[in-house]
């Protein structure tokens, strides 16, 4: 019996897929969502345990998830199994691909830091003198950011700074900063560096996910069907029209091959899975750009100091605690000459203790130091922008297949002097600030994690006005196939230092509204 043909097939259920489903179904468009993994039951699938109750006592099973530094034995089952879903890379150029295939994808576990990109990112080529501008500006995306911020209930302090665009924030009263944060603010001000507060999505009940903020409304319209455990192998094409007409997928458990039909295909599987799907389908790459310009952000640089007056339990009320958020302050004008382009943000936290690894000591001597420094520490870390470069790319490795027989990605990414110089600058800046405050610097590193660690990978199907140098147009629509949209981070031209989630959501909302209008006009 012929099955239902949906208006839109959405592949992926994270923030981008959830937003597409929310927008399209509310406009009366029938959608089918395919998700590669199962749905988690928050009552049944989670339980509080002590480390000694776990098979490896909290160490995690050795060799499991070697590329997911965020994994531990408590959360190991939430990540994609790297043996079932391998990828390859040159050992000299490691890459950490961190994936979640549960319904809702990585939207279940993100840190909820919520920023807009600014025109320092959208028009980066004008500022950096290299690279490409986005085909859109902040003004194009601002109305969508506002709606997304409303749905996700973003808290933030408005500043009026062009590199840190304000948004539609939930009003919040901020109490006075601790003395240490005041000191950081004062020192930054003297250096013409603005200090603000973290911007964060409150969501509902501490969860700001597709599964609680987007999909329930879409399901309530009666226009959304969701199939879980559906691993999409290939987008199918109508050879006569050159249009996408559905997708072939494999049941995760039985490996049964299935096919679904749809008038439009929206790909929202996450940057690299979306690109892998397009590549395995052999479509949308007349530009030769598909898979290129993979980039994300550098994490790991840190400096930790101790406030001498707060040591040995002598911290006074109001002296320690709280945090400061310092948005990008480098290369905001052409007069700011650095040995790197782009910039980074700094996150300063006050009130923690020292890490035992900071000391060349053991036993009672170590414990004595830890006790002395407890509560007296100030830590600084960064998120820095990696440059989107053509040579940093992914391609299909036909020699290696996943557990469902689908060829895997080979990732070929390497950092450049720009990232190294940026990291050094940030570590030196934080160290200088802490020294100026009169604090004892306990630890400093300008090293950072391999590419991919931030879980903010973007690019590989970038948008642009020129079909010869981009995969998608400014509406996240394939230049080659008019009824094919890619609405996740793959469309990014530059990533900035910002968590990309708000931008992914805003782009997906904007693309979905455009798609709805075009479908009504009969153009798609």
């Amino acid at each position, binding site marked *: 019996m012929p099955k239902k043909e949906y208006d839109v097939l959405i592949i992926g259920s994270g923030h981008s897929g959830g937003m597409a489903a929310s927008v399209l179904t509310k406009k009366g468009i029938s959608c089918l969502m395919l998700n590669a993994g199962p749905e988690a039951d928050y009552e049944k699938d989670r*339980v509080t345990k002590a480390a*000694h109750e776990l098979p490896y006592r909290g160490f995690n099973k*050795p060799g499991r998830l070697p590329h997911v530094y965020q994994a531990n034995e408590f959360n190991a089952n939430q990540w994609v199994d790297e043996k079932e879903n391998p990828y390859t890379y040159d050992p000299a150029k490691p890459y950490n691909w961190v994936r979640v295939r549960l319904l809702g994808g990585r939207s279940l576990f993100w840190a909820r830091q919520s920023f807009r990109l600014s025109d320092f990112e959208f028009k980066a080529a004008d500022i950096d003198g290299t690279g490409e501008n986005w085909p859109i500006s902040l003004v194009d995306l601002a109305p969508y950011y506002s709606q997304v911020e409303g749905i996700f209930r973003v808290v933030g302090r408005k500043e009026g700074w062009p590199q840190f665009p304000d948004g539609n924030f939930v009003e919040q009263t901020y109490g006075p900063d601790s003395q240490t944060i005041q000191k950081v603010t004062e020192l930054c001000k003297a250096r013409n560096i603005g200090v603000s507060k973290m911007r964060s999505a409150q969501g509902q009940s501490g969860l700001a996910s597709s599964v609680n903020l987007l999909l329930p409304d879409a399901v309530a319209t009666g226009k959304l069907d969701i199939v879980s455990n559906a691993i999409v192998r290939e987008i199918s094409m109508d050879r006569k029209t050159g249009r996408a007409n559905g997708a072939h997928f494999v049941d995760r458990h039985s490996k049964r091959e299935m096919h679904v039909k749809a008038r439009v295909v929206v790909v929202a599987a996450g940057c690299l899975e979306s690109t892998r799907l397009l590549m395995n389908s052999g479509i949308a790459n007349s530009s030769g750009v598909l898979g290129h310009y993979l980039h994300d952000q550098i994490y790991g640089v840190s400096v930790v100091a101790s406030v001498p007056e707060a040591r040995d339990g002598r911290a006074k009320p109001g002296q320690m605690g709280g945090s400061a958020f310092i948005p990008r302050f480098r290369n905001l004008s052409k007069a700011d000459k650095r040995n790197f382009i782009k910039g980074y943000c700094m996150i300063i936290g006050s009130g923690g203790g020292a890490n035992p690894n900071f000391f060349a000591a053991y036993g009672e001597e170590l414990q004595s130091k830890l006790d002395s420094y407890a509560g007296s520490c100030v830590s600084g870390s960064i998120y820095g922008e990696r440059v989107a470069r053509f040579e940093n790319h992914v391609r299909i490795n036909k020699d290696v297949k996943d557990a469902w027989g689908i060829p895997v990605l080979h990732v070929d990414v390497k950092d450049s002097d720009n990232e190294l110089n940026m990291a050094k600058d940030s570590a030196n800046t934080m160290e200088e600030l802490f020294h100026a405050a009169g604090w004892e610097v306990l630890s400093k*590193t300008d090293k950072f994690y391999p590419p991919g660690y931030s879980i903010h990978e973007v690019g590989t199907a970038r948008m642009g006005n020129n079909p010869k140098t981009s995969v998608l147009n400014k509406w996240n629509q394939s230049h080659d196939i008019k009824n094919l949209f890619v609405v996740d981070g793959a469309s990014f031209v530059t990533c900035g230092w910002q968590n990309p989630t708000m931008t992914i959501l805003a782009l997906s909302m904007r693309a979905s509204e455009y798609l709805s209008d075009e479908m009504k006009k009969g153009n798609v």
Partner: protein
Amino acid sequence: MKRRRFIKAVAAAPAVPALLSPLSAQQPPATQQPSTVPKASPEPTPAATGRGGFGRGGSAASVPRIPLVEADEAANTVARYFSPAQFAALRKLAGILVPPMKGNLGALDTDAVEFLDFLISSSPADQQQIYKNGLDALNASAKRQFGRPFADLETAQADTILKPLLVPVAWAYDPPKDPVKHFIYQAHQDIRTATRNSLDASRAQANLGRRNFATTGLYWNPIDPV
């Protein structure tokens, strides 16, 4: 400490030989009749009606949860990976790096060393080499300086070997380049974690009225595994 709950549980358990032998449950010995015979239940079990079968009988509410104990309550970890000399060096090292302090158990008050023997035996080859080479290096150094294996040194002697091998590490993913210093750094972290996360340490904390939040977390069960 380890077997206390187990022994208590055994002492409290009724003697139920039927559980030990399905055959004896079905065919009581002909020569020995029980003094009292429980009456048969008038309610047929699902299995008895022929509609049940294994795994089908009983609602969730009617099947009691049988209390279990952790393996660590009842048994000891068998160390069998490291050579006797390596294992003895690791025990000595653990006792020095993580002694009992401020009411907290030391590594040797728990099975941390035996657990690490298991953990390293399950680890990738590069981790195994870090440990084996590191322990061999400690023994070689001890014999060279004091004519004895590391395990037989006085604490002050062991200190003279260990202190030059300690280096501050600013970032976990940038360990010391020197393999022996790397081993000491890694082992120090592992011994601390294995000690802190042990059942014995958890119980000791509880006895002091402390709850060890650092070793408790929200565990995700396997979700619809293939």
